[in-house]
């Protein structure tokens, strides 16, 4: 076992000094520092903008000055509440001149037949996305509703018309109901878990990629035979898996820690309380899926590295496994549209796709306990088989130079095991 630790330490230190590892690992803290600097520089303005975009009561407002050309007559005259930030123009030409002179950011032209069609023209210098954003904004909706119901005193009705529903997702099988209605917190929870999933996948691939590269280098440089005269193949593989697994965990820890520190700092800089991540159990599950997923991929990558006669050949072989693993991510569009599809349940049971699929499902809260337990159980029971096959191929492939073994040969190795 001592030799396993020596190899693990060697692999950890050698790969931790790789330029690629240093760049990818330190990129998150570096980006965080840049973000903090930006936040410190424009902190006040950012804070104002942020509180207006994500106010505590959930309503949205804007700081933009908006011009109105009202041909329908429903907005004339402007209600006193809208004198600040809205300017009424009697003609479109007048409004356009103001737009060109940057006196207003957007010009809303409300046509005569608005009540029948519901259409409002939004003119701005950028066009496209900007106009759509404005069109969809709660500010304009609120403006129109308030003017349509200018004679009504029912503020609650106006409020409900402006914001008719807020979906509070409550799962049937959950023991406790989510009562939070903080939109930012919901987004943060979902995005954090989803990015954790991406981060996990990335780390699993990079760390097991280092293993593939290391094995391939040892094989092509012919040092492998010297190593195998000192340690058994399983010790070599185990040492590499341990060392590189720890390296991956280091990378994740650096990313998460720096992200937490810098995000907290950024929120403080803009004068906001950081949103609470209230699904801490996801981190525990992420660790479990990382360890199990890494074990599966590391062994397969080790075998691919041993079988290939060159680095390129090994990478081609490993690409097959990587492609299978990212299938859930390729299907992420379909997943977010309908996370409860049976296909995604099946993918979360298959060892190669389970870690990625389960992290994606956890991000949207679409992972019942039975699926979590089943996916972990199937990963655990399949790992000895993967290790047995991988280690056998690893052992036999290491000493084959110049010629890649055929599938038939690999099957024969396994039979002779």
């Amino acid at each position, binding site marked *: 076992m001592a030799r396993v630790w020596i190899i693990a330490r060697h692999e950890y230190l050698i790969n931790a000094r790789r330029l690629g590892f240093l760049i990818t690992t330190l990129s998150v803290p570096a980006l965080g520092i840049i973000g903090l600097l930006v936040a410190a520089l424009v902190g006040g303005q950012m804070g104002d903008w942020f509180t207006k975009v994500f106010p505590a009561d959930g309503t949205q407002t804007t700081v933009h000055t908006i011009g109105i050309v009202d041909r329908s007559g429903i907005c004339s005259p402007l209600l006193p509440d809208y004198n600040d930030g809205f300017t009424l123009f009697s003609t479109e030409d007048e409004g356009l001149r103001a737009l060109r002179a940057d006196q207003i950011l957007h010009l809303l032209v409300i046509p005569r037949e608005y009540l029948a069609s519901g259409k409002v023209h939004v003119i701005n210098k950028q066009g496209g996305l900007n106009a759509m954003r404005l069109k969809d904004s709660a500010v304009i909706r609120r403006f129109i509703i308030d003017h349509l119901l200018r004679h009504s005193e029912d503020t609650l009705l106006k409020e409900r018309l402006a914001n008719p529903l807020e979906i509070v997702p409550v799962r049937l099988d959950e023991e406790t109901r989510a009562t939070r209605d903080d939109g930012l917190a919901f987004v943060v929870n979902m995005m954090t878990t989803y990015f954790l999933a991406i981060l996990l996948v990335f780390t699993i691939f990079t760390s097991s990629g280092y293993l593939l590269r290391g094995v391939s280098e*040892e094989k092509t*440089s012919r*040092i492998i*035979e*010297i190593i195998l005269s*000192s340690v*058994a193949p399983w010790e070599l593989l185990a040492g590499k898996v341990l060392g590189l697994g720890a390296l991956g965990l280091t990378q994740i820890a650096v990313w998460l820690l720096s992200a937490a520190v810098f995000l907290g700092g950024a929120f403080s800089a803009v004068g906001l309380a950081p949103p609470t991540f209230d699904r801490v159990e996801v981190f525990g599950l992420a660790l479990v899926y990382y360890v199990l997923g890494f074990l599966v991929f590391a062994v397969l990558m080790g075998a691919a590295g041993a079988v290939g006669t060159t680095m390129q050949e090994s990478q081609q072989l490993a690409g097959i496994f990587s492609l299978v693993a990212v299938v859930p991510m390729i299907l992420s569009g379909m997943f977010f549209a309908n996370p409860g599809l049976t296909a995604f349940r099946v993918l979360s049971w298959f060892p190669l796709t389970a870690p990625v699929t389960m992290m994606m499902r956890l991000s949207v809260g679409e992972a019942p306990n039975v699926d979590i337990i089943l996916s972990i159980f199937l990963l655990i029971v399949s790992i000895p088989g993967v290790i047995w096959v991988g280690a056998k191929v690893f052992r036999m492939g290491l000493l084959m130079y110049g010629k890649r073994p055929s599938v038939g040969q690999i099957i024969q190795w396994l039979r002779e095991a």
Partner: protein
Amino acid sequence: MSDKIVQVHHLVKRYGNFTAVHDLSFEVYRGEVFGLLGPNGAGKTTTIRIIMDILKPDGTGVQGARKATVSIFGHPPRTVRARVGYLPEERGLYRNMMVLSVLEYLAQLKGLGRTTARQNAITWLEKVGLRDWAGRKVSELSRGMQQKLQLAASAVHDPELLILDEPFQGLDPVNVEAIKGLIHDLQRDGKTIVLSAHQMNLVEALCDRILLVNKGRGVLYGKLADIKRQYAPNSIRLRTSAALPDLAGVKQVRALGNGTYTLTLEGISSQGLLKSLVDHGLPIESYEVATAPLDEIFIAAVKGDR
């Protein structure tokens, strides 16, 4: 303590239908340099890899009658890895690592603590003349230097048994002499060495006993001197300043120049011929029982096996 350091009995290794090693048996004794010889593809490297526990032998010997056994120091190879040093034929080093770090790492894999590993690594770098290169990358070393470093890597943990597969391959004469000197030093320090090489002059200079393998089978096995005599029976090498007279019992005379002759005897012993020469009053400068050069024996044995 047994003098038999390596014991190989009825070793068989098949790859599919091809038998690489066929019922091979031999022993290596303490303190000797043992030559494992044979043409390319004879099964030497496979045999060495089995001794090193890198490959597993087939379960049973020929026709399943005798079980193949391999032991080092009387134990299964996997249990005594730390006491064995190995320089493989297919060899390399971590090219991007520092010279000293490579030796330290390999020594630690053989069970040495970090401090001892470092001390031994420095000692060996001094022995092979690479002390000044300790902090440089392996890729900066010349081929000869790398080969010396590889020999150091095989011996850095102070093993009792060293297995050197083609240590002279691709070296210039200067480095050949350097490696040869190191092997002599190792033997002088009491190490047992198994040497596989194609350079017969070096094998003659270094080895005490040999095993010649061809097509996976042992063809010649024993003391080198005995084998050489065996291949040159009834021959005398003689040097004299005078012309050779007609001598009874001499079947053939071959002049080698500078007054040196090889005489093939028939019906007379070497002692009888010496007496006859003295009786003839011939001035004798040297007189020895002739032996055949090893490369001739090698070719004859391999051809004879075909």
